[in-house]
């Protein structure tokens, strides 16, 4: 019998120790906070599941605030996906396939992805200002009243345009990679079959891009659902609470009001929502792949072609007619 040397576990011990300190202990601290009420001077009182009840009850003050920012965040993610995914596909389709322009386009596409989040926020904050910002000035001169610090619509528009500018490239690059992997024979076969441009997209390009598209949707959903830095820098969650997304609300609660108990409960629920979403996407992706590996062999060997075949006369006839 083969003996197993259990001492190898000692080799992974440092990893466990690091994970313990970096992830597990902070998480347990958050869990600990979430069941207590905190006061100044480091006083804590047991509160049981009180914060969770309040958080998930839309009629309470905390619950109303939580659900407001949750719906706001979901709406934002939905708008982002609805704009960035189709736009990304269109841009990827119109990118060149060969010659030096490929490299040029790829670099241009990658540029926004390389800019740090808070810099993006700052750029657009200045860009959108009515007095010194090019965008804000031009839009106001065109006769449209545009002020992202006063109008919720303007604030939303600015944040959405900013996110589209920042992240559509990611969808483009992923889709482009998917498109590049389609062999030429598919396009040639489609030409022989007389397929229109739309039919080629629907029957070849979209199915072949499906896997990368799922990844793109997943990444864009996660990122937009956890968005913090850019709107924080641009609008600070305002005007009013118009652009206060979950993460901004959480920071306000934890660091602004120092309500550690409420903030801890909220971050746990926030976390669970993201985990649940991840699980949904993961399940969809694995299910979409699962029928790929299966192969159905046709159990009609070629010799039945000759035997069980209706007379080929009709084929012959309309061939001659043609």
């Amino acid at each position, binding site marked *: 019998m083969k003996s197993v040397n259990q001492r190898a576990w000692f080799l992974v011990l440092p990893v466990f120790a690091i994970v313990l300190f970096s992830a597990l202990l902070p998480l347990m601290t958050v869990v600990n906070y979430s069941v207590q009420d905190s006061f100044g001077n480091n006083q804590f009182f047991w509160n049981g599941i009180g914060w969770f009840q309040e958080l998930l009850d839309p009629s309470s003050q905390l619950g109303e605030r939580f659900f407001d920012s949750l719906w706001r965040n979901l709406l934002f993610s939905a708008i982002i996906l609805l704009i960035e995914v189709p736009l990304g596909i269109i841009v990827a389709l119109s990118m060149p396939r060969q010659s030096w322009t490929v490299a040029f386009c790829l670099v241009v596409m990658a540029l926004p992805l390389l800019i740090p989040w808070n810099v993006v926020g700052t750029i657009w904050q200045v860009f959108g200002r009515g007095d010194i910002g090019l965008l804000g000035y031009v839009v106001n001169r065109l006769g449209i009243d545009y002020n992202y610090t006063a109008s919720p619509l303007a604030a939303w528009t600015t944040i959405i345009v900013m996110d589209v500018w920042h992240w559509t490239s990611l969808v483009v690059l992923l889709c482009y990679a998917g498109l590049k992997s389609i062999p030429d024979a598919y396009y040639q076969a489609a030409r022989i079959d007389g397929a229109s441009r739309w*039919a080629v997209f629907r*029957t070849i390009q979209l199915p072949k891009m499906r896997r990368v598209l799922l990844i793109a949707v997943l990444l864009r959903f996660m990122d937009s659902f956890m968005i913090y830095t850019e709107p924080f820098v641009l609008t600070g969650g305002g005007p009013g609470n118009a652009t206060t997304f979950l993460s901004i609300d959480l920071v306000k609660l934890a660091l602004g009001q120092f309500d550690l108990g409420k903030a801890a409960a909220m971050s746990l629920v926030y976390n669970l929502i993201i985990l649940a979403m991840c699980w949904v996407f993961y399940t969809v992706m694995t299910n979409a792949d699962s029928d790929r590996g299966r192969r159905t062999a046709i*159990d009609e060997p070629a010799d039945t072609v000759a035997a069980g075949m209706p007379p080929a006369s009709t084929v012959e006839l309309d*061939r001659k007619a*043609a």
Partner: protein
Amino acid sequence: MARIILDHLAHSYSADPRGPSDYALKEIDHVWEQGGAYALLGPSGCGKTTLLNIISGLVIPTRGRILFDDRDVTTLPTEARNIAQVFQFPVVYDTMTVAGNLAFPLENRRVPRDVIAVRVKEIAGLLGLGRVLEHKARNLTADAKQKISLGRGLVRADVGAILFDEPLTVIDPHLKWQLRSTLKELHRRLNVTMIYVTHDQTEALTFADKVVVMHDGAVVQMGTPEELFERPAHTFVGHFIGSPGMNILPAQVEGATARVDGHAIQLLRLYPALPKGQRIEIGVRPEFVHLLPKGLGVPVQVRRLDDIGRTRIARVELAGQPMAASVADAVAIDGDEGSLAFDLEQLHVYADGHLVEGEPLAGAAP
């Protein structure tokens, strides 16, 4: 219905071709008769796929014209030609069922629905796909996918020619034979021209009535499998077709006598006017050279005997030149010395690689 005529066709992938070496396809004049089964045979990179793509319209030739019957289609796009093509790797539309795949070319051409349904059923029956019509095409095996690709060509009533670009590359060996006989059977039933590109001589010789051998961008010979085997027009054909290939030996030929390193071989035809300064060789297939015990013919060194199942092939050396010869079962060879006997009517003379037709020997028996 199409007779395909290639008229002084040539193609170069470089924008500014200068010498003949810039041409992937050297000038070619050729007629593919309606309803023929042709194979385009040649090693990789000899231009056969280029030629196929020109016929299907995926590539526009640099020079020359291509005619379907009397219609000039040189610059006509693929979808406007009445051809279909089956590619090396099976192309199916993943999201559709087998029936959807077969119906696709007809739907694109706005054929009425009831006609489509009838055609799809009929072609699926021909190909043995009837039972999987409602299956998703992407779940099928590679050979079934190739049948679908073929079916998408066959459903179109206007298709006069089907082009195959090494269609059996990704098919399991035991299914290759089946699929090839399906193709032959279809060719027999349907009056459609088939052009089959391959680098596999077995595929070419078993599939085609006429084989076109290409080498280095040019057609070197076209003929039936027997002609290619018995009278290779070029040493390349002799070498490329047959296993092992033809023996090619440098020789001096004068009149009706060939000399290989001093050994005279009497030929059945006269070669009075061989061009001077060219490389003269004689070629004979291993099947027509017989190894005999020492002293019964041209003496050779025997290096090895290979038993290839049905026959034995001897690897011998004649004047330092390696050759292959067949060995009859009854013949026993002692040591490494033997001699060769030639089937003289199967012995050909080549000048710079090209077959030279001899003149009948005066006074020879008819």
